[in-house]
């Protein structure tokens, strides 16, 4: 009886694997036909990360893995559509202001009465009928495109400082401030700190790459500190997050699990520490209690990194991080080789967006920085996240194809 069941399970997982491989072979063929000169590592890297995530989600909840599989299909279809129909990504440069405004619109969408859905205290979701999605994930891509185009146009002015005291004039800096300020407002209003931190970091990174002025980073840092301080005093949610972080990081003091949300960080840290060097083994970790609930809440979304550390150990976690580092390397390599500003900034922006997002959540679940809920790109369960990240891969490959063709 038991053997029979195991047989069924292994057939099921085998068919999953075959389906998954077929899917990526198809995506690869699309790339080979449409973008023959594109970087050959980026799509396989995304594929390995996705497989990492799917395996872990399957181990936690097979039904959820099936849904994630469907989202991967949707993501790859969106990817193929983007690659096949957009043809020249530089056309996006011409509509950057529209895209910028669209990004703000998307971010504001959850605040629209009747549309917004609040899940776990954050109003990040939009529900249309049975479909619930997180517009912020798509806004991230649009904002990067806008910033790439805008910074390319104004980088000379911004880096030289055309106004008084060597500061850039409001004419050049204004639109940037408006777009950015709007995005920040919306984010704080929706209580999405992880998103706020992510967008702000992307903004600073791209600004610095475009202008090479440390002053911007410094001013930006101060602005962020002031904003964060104000937010800390206004929102009890943020105060609690910081208190949890102080009680849990480095020591996991006994006060840590006292907070409702400290419990999840404490459990996350227990899972990481219990995983040891090589982990308990895939499927053998202490993740699910006999009553069937996970010890770490949101294990398949925000805390998937802790689950991986428990079952695959420090080695597995470091391996996963290494994949992001390789992805970062390939993405930046595309940017380095590009010869026009828009391509450079676009590649840098998209790659940093993924890397910074991965850092914010892995840093959060390990207690390195205050925890903010955000997905681990390609790995966490989440439809919007998967689709948006595959769009990023598509854009990166299009830039790469263009760059390599110019060079050849």
């Amino acid at each position, binding site marked *: 009886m038991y053997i029979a069941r195991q047989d069924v399970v292994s057939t099921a997982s085998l068919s999953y694997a075959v389906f998954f491989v077929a899917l990526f072979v198809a995506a690869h063929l699309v790339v080979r036909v449409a973008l023959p000169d594109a970087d050959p590592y980026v799509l396989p890297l995304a594929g390995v990360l996705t497989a990492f995530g799917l395996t872990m989600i399957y181990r*936690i909840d097979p039904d959820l893995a099936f849904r994630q599989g469907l989202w991967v299909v949707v993501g790859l279809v969106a990817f193929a559509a983007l690659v096949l129909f957009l043809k020249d990504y530089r056309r996006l440069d011409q509509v950057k202001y529209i895209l910028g405004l669209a990004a703000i619109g998307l971010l504001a969408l959850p605040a629209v009465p009747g549309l917004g859905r609040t899940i776990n205290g954050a109003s990040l979701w939009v529900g249309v009928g049975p479909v619930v999605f997180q517009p912020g994930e798509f806004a991230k891509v649009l904002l990067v495109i806008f910033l790439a185009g805008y910074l390319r146009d104004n980088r000379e002015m911004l880096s030289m400082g055309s106004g008084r005291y060597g500061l850039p004039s409001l004419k050049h800096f204004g639109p940037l401030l408006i777009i950015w300020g709007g995005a920040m407002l919306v984010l704080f209003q929706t209580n999405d700190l992880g998103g706020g931190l992510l967008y702000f970091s992307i903004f600073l990174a791209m600004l610095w790459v475009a202008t090479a002025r440390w002053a911007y980073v410094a001013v930006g840092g101060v602005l962020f500190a002031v904003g964060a301080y104000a937010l800390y005093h206004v929102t009890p949610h943020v105060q609690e997050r910081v208190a949890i972080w102080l009680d849990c990081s480095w020591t996991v003091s006994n006060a840590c699990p006292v907070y409702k949300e400290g419990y999840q960080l404490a459990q996350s840290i227990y899972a990481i520490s*219990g995983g040891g060097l090589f982990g308990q*083994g895939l499927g053998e970790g202490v993740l699910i209690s*006999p009553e069937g609930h996970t010890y770490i809440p949101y294990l398949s979304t925000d805390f998937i990194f802790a689950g991986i550390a428990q079952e695959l150990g*420090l080695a597995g976690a470091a391996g996963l991080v290494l994949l992001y580092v390789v992805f970062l390397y390939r993405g930046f390599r595309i940017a380095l080789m590009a010869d026009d500003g828009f391509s450079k900034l676009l590649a840098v922006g998209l790659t*940093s967006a993924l890397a910074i997002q991965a850092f914010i959540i892995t840093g959060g679940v390990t207690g390195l920085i205050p925890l903010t809920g955000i997905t681990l790109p390609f790995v966490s369960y989440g439809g919007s996240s998967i689709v948006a990240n595959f769009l990023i891969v598509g854009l990166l490959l299009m830039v790469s194809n263009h760059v390599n063709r110019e060079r050849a």
Partner: protein
Amino acid sequence: MNPQIRRLFFVLVTLFVAVIGMSTWWLWKAPDLEARRGNPNLLVKQLTIERGRIFAADGRTVFARNRKVKKKSLGRTWFLRVYPRHKLVAHPVGYSTIERSRTGLEKSLNDYLTGSNANLDTVLNNALDKLKGLTQKGNDVVTTINARAQKVAMDALAGKCGGAVALEPSTGRVLVLASQPSYDPNLVEGHFNQILRTKASCGSASPLLDRATQGRFIPGSTFKVVTAAAALDTGRYTPSSRFDDPGYCIEYGKKVSNFADQSGPEVFGNVSFAEALEHSINAVFCNIGKTLGPNTVLRYAQRFGFYEEPPIELPSEEVTPSGLYRKGRLFLPKDPNQVDPGRLAFGQERLLVTPLQMALVAAGIGNEGIVMEPTLVDRILAPGGKVIERSSPKEWKKAIKARTAAELTAMMRAVVESGTGTAAQISGVPVAGKTGTAETGVSGRNDTWFIAFAPADRPQVAIAVALSGQSGTGGATAAPIAKAIIEALLKRNP
């Protein structure tokens, strides 16, 4: 822009290295974190060990075994506990669960049961199992409990609130450790509310309370045995010392009347010391107590083990010391005027004792005045069946002289032959015993007792039975239960 891109790359890589550094830090802290409340890792590690089984004295009757749970989502095979005898040995064996941790032998012998004791055999076995990738196995425990007699005791106590302890006087082996109301340890995990809803005839059912080792009962006349031991052992009295019983004793200028827990007339007149014990005459003991003084009586109580937790293998919080209690706390008076010597002598005052302690008193008298350490564990077996530890009898207290013990034995035989304890007579077997009926201040709610050992000439069983909330006397309520348990135990050793 390229220099900035390169620098940004290193900044981001540094951040990722910091994440890995943080994870490494947690690995470093793992031993410290493992013990933290709410950390499931250690608990689950123990649940994946095939815990040793717990057996009755016969080595065959299973008191605790494992149930394998293999669910895909759990990842590994878990071993959850099953208690096939349900309520029978819930108190001594205890439970081992995820939600409510452990009690009883499951708690105190956890190191043996999980095979984490530092015994050469076990360490080698575990290392080999790990190398072979086998499930780690714990050691089996064979207790001293006689399953059949335990059943007799639990059935006899059923519906009442009380406890019974039977020991082997010469070794201290605990043959029966019964407490009612009991609970089904299988329900602790997940159905704990059912246990909390247990109803009982006495005030609060408290099914988790082990009345045999933690139940505080007023000893009443059973304590006269301790007073008599003091009286004889000090040489102040002999069994033939003469007393005049006017039906009361005068303390602090007031009359303390005899109690109904005595057979025969209210006023006995001129009696011997032996007759005073036989008929449990309060007035006589009241006067003995006044003569000896409370300090002497309490000193002898201590020589039997009062004021100490008996060194049984149960967790310390499940064993209560016996003695005088003041405001819920054990109290040993420095100043004799703090204690009423007369009432102390016949076991009222503020004395509170456990059935285990009174069984040890009976066992001490039956073992020529020497109280052996009570033990619940006979042997511990490695997974292959090899004995890795065997308990050996240890002397705990030298309570009284052998001659005193012999004199007391003769006096206690008379109690069963022709005194208050005739209900415990067993044909062909001489029984030495003592009844007790203690007033709690509420009529019809007495603590009733019977302590005994048998056969009186060559004791194999010492016993104490205590019941609360009784309207009858100890001789009528507790003695028949003691008799049934003794019979069940002696049948084993014909």
